[in-house]
């Protein structure tokens, strides 16, 4: 009997977390890379008097999230490629979409962990009132992360077989996820206004939800044929 969808997904997640807890490699490198991104942006967006350009914080936060997310994606699947564990995972008597869901949950957790550190840091460095509407900001970040990670996990998984995966992942991932990043940046920028423009942020949250539904459905649907050689 094949185990249920949720059980498989949670087992894959548990496996990924166990490996990660042992070395903490992806967590540390991703976080360090995100911090380095923010530092590099400070050179571009801070004027000579030491004042950051108005409204730059939203873009900096999202680009740091997207860049570090890409790094985490390629590292996670590099690990699976090593000693062919991805093939073993796909050979397991479990439904393929469940394996995808497990990998996706792991990615989302990883990205959220980075965001938890990154958001206060960007708020601190760029004088951004991120926490005026914490719930709205959390929904924007959460939905944006789901959208980015859902496409990212699928693409990173299917690129494992190719030789040029490191180059192809960003080339494929960014154009497809630009709508998610636009929605995230614009929504966050609306929250940074004084007073925060809640209706605008809510509109973007709605759009992000629509993107997530489309991307997740497509990814779950196409994962099986894409991973079949």
């Amino acid at each position, binding site marked *: 009997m094949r185990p249920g969808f949720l059980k498989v997904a949670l087992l894959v997640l548990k496996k990924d977390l166990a490996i990660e807890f042992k070395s903490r490699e992806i967590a540390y490198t991703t976080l360090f890379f995100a911090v380095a991104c923010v530092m590099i942006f400070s050179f571009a967006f801070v004027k000579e008097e030491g004042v950051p350009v108005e409204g730059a914080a939203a873009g900096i936060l999202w680009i740091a999230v997207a860049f570090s997310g890409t790094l985490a994606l390629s590292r996670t699947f590099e690990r699976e490629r090593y000693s062919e564990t991805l093939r073993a995972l796909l050979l397991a008597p479990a439904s393929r979409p469940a394996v995808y869901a497990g990998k996706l949950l792991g990615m989302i957790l990883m990205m959220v962990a980075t965001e938890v550190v990154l958001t206060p840091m960007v708020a601190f460095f760029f004088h951004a009132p991120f926490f005026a509407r914490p719930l709205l900001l959390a929904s924007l970040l959460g939905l944006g992360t789901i959208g980015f990670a859902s496409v990212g996990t699928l693409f990173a998984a299917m690129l494992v077989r190719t030789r040029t995966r490191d180059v192809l992942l960003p080339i494929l991932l960014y*154009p*497809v996820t630009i709508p998610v990043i636009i929605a995230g940046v614009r929504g966050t920028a609306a929250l940074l206004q004084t007073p925060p423009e809640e209706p605008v942020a809510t509109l973007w949250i709605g759009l992000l939800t629509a993107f997530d539904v489309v991307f997740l459905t497509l990814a779950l649907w196409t994962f099986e044929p894409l991973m079949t050689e």
Partner: protein
Amino acid sequence: MMKKIFLPLALVTAAMFAYAPFAINNVPLESTMLLVQKIFYFHFATWMALTAVIAVCGVSSLIYLFKGSRAADWYAVASAELVVVFGVFGLFSGSLWGRKAWGVWWQWDARVTMATMLVLVFLGYLMVRKYGGPGSEKLAAAMGIFGAATAPFVYKSVDWWRTIHPQTSVVRTLGDKFPAAWNLVLYCSAAFLLLAYLLLAARVRLEAMRSELDRMYLAAED
């Protein structure tokens, strides 16, 4: 069948494109934008053709991915190339229009940004095919499906966001407000759709011949 109607269709399309400048010249000026608005007839028609080839690419990518049909893959690659061609032409005509109507060559407007991204997705499609190595057709198919899935968002983007690009309602209500322009838009769209069809057919035939040649090489080696 395709071979027989290709030449007559090509002649019809050529005649339609030859007549189009005269028709555009004859249609009355639009009341606010005057002469500048005339680029609309080709600009809109380009994006109509682009929508059609995106739909072809999305559907044939799905068929290729789930059924593994070689012919579907030929249609997918042919239409992806056409998306890039029409997309670049559409962005170019939009840029010319924007220079006169908005005063800038490039505006970071929601519709313009999303449309550029859409062209980038299909450039990515072509890159995967070129540099992805063996089995890259499948990876490209995923790009085609996701690209086609974001296309409706690009279309609706102008209605949702505060933007400078005209909304979709402009075209929908054009038939009542300005019948002469509406008829001409339909005419130009038909010409561009025919052109897209001809290019697609020619490109698919090339792809089919290539695959036949490969098969013959393999057969000769055995």
